[in-house]
């Protein structure tokens, strides 16, 4: 993985690291076969560096972790969901640009 600032999370860790985490968390639901997901990879890395210490940026591989995507009704990827204090603040589906992703993250900051 390109960036150390982006953490990979699994179904098991979701509750503790995302819902109960201190910081707001943007979760990027992706899969290796998804072109647009890979295309936004570099932007996610950049955002992780820019928001370090303020927002946690995490990625979840939906092939390996079916439970969490199912729980949030995800049937299209990439889907990025912004969590704060255990709740969904907002979400975006599709390979959008950095401006839109930054706007999304700023809703929780």
């Amino acid at each position, binding site marked *: 993985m390109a960036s150390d600032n982006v953490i990979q999370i699994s179904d098991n860790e979701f509750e503790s690291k995302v819902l109960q985490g201190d910081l707001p968390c943007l979760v990027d639901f992706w899969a290796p076969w998804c072109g647009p997901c890979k295309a936004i990879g570099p932007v996610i890395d950049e955002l992780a560096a820019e928001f370090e210490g303020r927002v946690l940026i995490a990625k979840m591989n939906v092939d390996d972790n079916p439970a969490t995507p199912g729980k949030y009704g995800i049937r299209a*990827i990439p889907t990025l969901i912004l969590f704060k204090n255990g709740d969904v603040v907002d979400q975006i589906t599709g390979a959008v640009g950095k401006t839109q992703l930054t706007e999304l993250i700023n809703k929780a900051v």
Partner: protein
Amino acid sequence: MDKADYQLVIIGGGPAGLTAGLYAARARLNTVLVEKTTLGGQVLITHWVDNYPGVVDGAAGYDLIEKWTAHARRFGLETRSANVVSLDLKNSIKILNLENGDRITARAVIICTGGSPGKLNVPGEKEFTGKGVSYCATCDGPFYKGREIAVVGGGNTAIQEAVHLTRFAAKVTVIHRRGELRATKVVQEKAFADERIEFILNAEVEEIRGGPDGVEELRLRHRDGSVSSLAVTGVFILIGVVPNNEILPRDALELDEYGFIITDTEMRTALPGVFAAGDIRSKNFRQIVTAAGEGATAELSAEHYLANMDEQ
């Protein structure tokens, strides 16, 4: 003449834009390619490309775009992630207004904004988008493992993706409003040979119905006037492309009845110094290779235009 920020600005980073960008970089033109999401355009959501000359064994859409991007970067193409919200193309200095308030000026512009998946515009379509209605088989296919789904369309995209979807779905029903498919014969053959694919021709989707868990059935109207119901949990609408023309000055540019930009064979639009390439152009056939060819032609046309302007 007043100075512009750039000699050339390319709007859109799909195959047309990236090829124009590659050529512009090699021509050492002061250029920037502006893309609002990620580079690649519709190729990014194409699972597999088997008809691009030179790519003998085929390639995933994403991998093809990686190569194109690397190629353009090798010659130093500058790209910018930004959303153009309005254009002023009337004068010799063209103005592009960006969403964040910035402004870029250029002496020539190539419009490569491309197309987006067309919609059926039937009841239920909007409500169930993301919950069973999809416009991208590559993106969403895996969410339908073992299910029965439908594909609407009869061209290459629809039939190719129908075949791709059989890796996940238990059954794929292709619905097309004509009596014959439009897809390339080789593609059709593959689909006909697959037991998991069924065809309902001469029929249109009248309504998409479902419940809290998403899509449950499609109501179809057949050519003879009869109506039937098809039980599916997913429907992939792959009927063709609509132009991304929201920001274009429609009164100044010549557009066809569907909203695509009309150009001559050198990619020149009705406005001097303004060119168009790729799916945004008015034409019958939209392919990756034609977009690339048009991107190169547009850049060469733009170079010619700029050289002539300098001489005056």
